[in-house]
């Protein structure tokens, strides 16, 4: 999902949409995974993250488009299978339909999966007759030689039906035409799902008592009264209606009623779809073959590991040149910036603070963070769009199940590799609140892009050098081992949490393995890179710049003969040494709280007693500096361990608080990795000083 402007701006179930002179309000609904977001993007031109597995869009996004001088507002509601279970997405969708009363509800369906999609269509049609069925992914259906008879479907449903491939511009134009027409259309004869006689009779006796309501609304109100999912205050209904409902409820429990309704909907969909779709899924055989490889007993894990290796290697190698280029660019601007401030009349200390403090940290963060993120996330998104990610969850679910959590945590974990804050937001795909919390709390145990430079530097300097025969591939392999270790730790901690702070039974798990789809590569890349760039720059401005100021002040303000920085390192040194590190390293981690990328530069600053962040020319230089300050391979091990297991960065902490809305869990999110990291370092240090 990622941290896009949309996901950050619109919380789950946020207030009513901005109206801004919109004449019509359209609700966009559909099963997960039908390309709803592609339709939304195409209609509104907004940048929104999409993906090819269930549970992607979780907030409500709003947008608009113009046609014939009119403004149509669209609400992209979370994908749901039904309106009557109790997950957050379903409630958001249902509430929107009932309370915001859109002029039209466009239900997006997957042409390859029409029968199941009809379930939601029929449920929506019970609430509102103003529906347009948009059968999407016709191009994919064509590949599978599935040709739905849309006119027949329209005939049977009684609402307009249009078939499109959301990727085609001309189809989007046809869709806007269809929307404009559908809004003007009069009610007409729409399909009514018929329930078993006993239920229908009771519905009749209830609706008879509600003559003031339009027939449609009355029937829906009656249904909800009987199955217990309605929100209507019972006292507002006439007593005769209530009596009929109560009589019925004597005979049948809510779950029996729920069964009746669910089964009738399935049968209705079955009968409607008959002859609308002829061919059975022909491509299914090919896909099942592909799945045999990607999820097979022998091949699944090696493929996943290889893919992990490949993604990391591409990210690291690919980011090298852009990073150093950006770095030199920003450095070259430093001197001119300095002169400009002085010329503007700024006092020297302020100029130094701004340029050597704020600007330097800001440029470091952007130079280090932007290229890897701009590579990792687009790759991740491509994997999502192709449909591989649910297979990862499928392959790993058993491990997570054993830890009493959900297989979807595998996916939030993968996102955490890019950015922990993004991983935390992604935890919204997990239904159970308990399991969602576990995923949130353990997300920072996997290293994000910001920590890779440190891990790589440590690896190259103390373990496998990039110049050695093993080379960069060896380095990537070592990094992969570190990653696997962090995954193991995540599982262990998840298990621990399930047994202590977040006890509970594992929730049930249904995961759809969607058909593989060819991603629209260019648009995915462009959209993803833009999203990432905006995020990194915003974060740099909000977090890195102030941090830079603070660091500069600490390193330059003097108290009693030495800088505050030096005082702090002295204070922290005993604890640092206990953990196999020293005061400088520990302080660097602490000051790296706003942004993990600054840890190494701050360390260097400390060792060189410089007043500002210092870059290292080469890893050999850095190695020399570190060993001169007492570093051994054990120190490097402890640093790696602590980098994997320490407090989340400030952006992640803020996100954790926003997602959990609880100080208690946020505190745990802070303390858990910290305490474990400290213990691990002390353990390693203790063991090594015992034996070595």
């Amino acid at each position: 999902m990622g941290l896009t402007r949309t996901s950050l701006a619109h919380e789950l179930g946020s207030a009513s949409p901005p109206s801004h002179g919109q004449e019509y309000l359209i609700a966009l609904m559909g099963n997960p995974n039908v390309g709803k977001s592609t339709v939304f993007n195409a209609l509104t031109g907004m940048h929104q993250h999409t993906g090819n597995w269930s549970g992607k869009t979780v907030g409500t996004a709003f947008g608009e488009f113009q046609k014939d001088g009119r403004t149509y507002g669209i609400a992209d509601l979370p994908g749901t299978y039904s309106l009557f279970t109790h997950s957050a997405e379903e409630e958001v969708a249902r509430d929107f339909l009932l309370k915001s009363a859109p002029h039209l509800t466009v239900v997006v369906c997957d042409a390859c999966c029409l029968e199941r999609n009809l379930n939601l269509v029929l449920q929506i049609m019970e609430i509102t007759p103003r529906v347009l069925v948009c059968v999407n992914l016709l191009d994919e259906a064509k590949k599978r030689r599935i040709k739905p008879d849309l006119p027949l479907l329209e005939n049977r449903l009684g609402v307009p039906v249009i078939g499109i491939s959301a990727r085609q511009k001309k189809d989007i134009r046809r869709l806007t035409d269809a929307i404009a027409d559908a809004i003007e259309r009069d009610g007409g004869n729409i399909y009514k799902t018929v329930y078993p006689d006993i239920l229908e009779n009771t519905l009749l006796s209830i609706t008879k008592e509600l003559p003031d309501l339009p027939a449609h609304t009355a029937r829906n109100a009656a249904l909800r009264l009987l199955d217990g999912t309605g929100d209507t205050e019972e006292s507002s209904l006439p007593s005769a209606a209530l009596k009929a409902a109560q009589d019925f409820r004597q005979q049948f429990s809510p779950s029996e009623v729920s069964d009746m309704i669910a089964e009738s909907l399935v049968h209705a969909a079955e009968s409607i779809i008959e002859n609308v779709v002829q061919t059975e899924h022909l491509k299914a055989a090919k896909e099942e073959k592909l799945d045999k490889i990607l999820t097979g007993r022998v091949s699944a894990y090696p493929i996943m590991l290889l893919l992990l290796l490949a993604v990391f290697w591409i990210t690291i190698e690919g980011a090298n040149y852009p990073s150093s280029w950006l770095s030199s660019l920003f450095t070259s601007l430093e001197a001119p910036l300095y002169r400009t401030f002085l010329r503007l009349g700024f006092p020297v200390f302020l100029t130094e603070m701004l340029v050597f403090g704020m600007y330097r940290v800001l440029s470091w963060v952007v130079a280090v963070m932007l290229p890897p993120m701009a590579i990792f996330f687009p790759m991740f998104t491509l994997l999502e769009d192709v449909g591989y990610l649910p297979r990862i969850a499928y392959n790993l679910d058993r491990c997570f199940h054993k830890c009493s959590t959900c297989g979807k945590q595998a996916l939030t974990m993968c996102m955490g590799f890019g950015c922990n804050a993004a991983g935390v937001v992604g935890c919204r795909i997990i239904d159970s609140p308990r399991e969602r919390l576990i995923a949130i709390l353990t997300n920072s145990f996997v290293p994000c892009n910001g920590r890779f430079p440190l891990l790589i530097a440590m690896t190259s300097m103390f373990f496998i050098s990039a110049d050695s025969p093993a080379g960069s591939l060896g380095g990537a392999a070592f990094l992969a081992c570190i990653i696997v270790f962090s995954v193991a730790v995540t599982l262990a901690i998840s298990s621990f949490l399930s047994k202590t702070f977040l006890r509970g039974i594992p929730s049930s798990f249904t995961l759809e393995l969607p058909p593989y789809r060819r991603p629209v590569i260019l648009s995915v890349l462009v959209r993803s890179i833009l999203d990432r760039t905006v995020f990194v720059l915003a974060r740099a401005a909000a977090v890195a710049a102030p941090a830079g100021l603070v660091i500069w002040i600490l390193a330059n303000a003097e108290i009693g003969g030495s800088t505050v920085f030096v005082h702090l390192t002295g204070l922290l040194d005993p604890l640092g040494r206990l953990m196999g590190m020293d005061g400088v390293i520990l302080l660097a981690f602490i000051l790296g709280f706003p942004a993990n990328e600054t840890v190494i530069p701050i360390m260097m600053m400390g060792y060189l007693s410089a007043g500002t962040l210092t870059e290292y020319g080469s890893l050999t230089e850095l190695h020399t500096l570190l060993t001169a300050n007492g570093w051994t391979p054990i120190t490097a091990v402890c640093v790696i361990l602590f980098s994997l297991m320490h407090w989340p960065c400030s952006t992640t902490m803020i996100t954790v608080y926003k997602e959990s809305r609880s100080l208690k869990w946020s505190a745990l999110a802070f303390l858990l990795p910290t305490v474990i990291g400290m213990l691990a370092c002390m353990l390693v240090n203790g063991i090594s000083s015992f034996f070595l």
Partner: protein
Amino acid sequence: MLPSNTISCPTVPMCTLKIGEVGTVRKIALTGSLRRRLQDIGVIPGTKIRCVGISPLGDPKAYRIRGAVIALRGDDCREILVER
């Protein structure tokens, strides 16, 4: 109440279906949100289900249900009885 079919053929838990085997759902003993979720994707008495895959670690298994492929855990499938 909906008429229930009295079948003389034996029913087995869905999780015992091997890859390629087809079963017709006869009884769903699950309750709560999972029951409803399954109903929403079309798993009701009479639905034909085909097992199409097993996860590398043995669980969950993948089933083709009304055209879609859904992964379900053994613990949950145990409660769904099918007729081979």
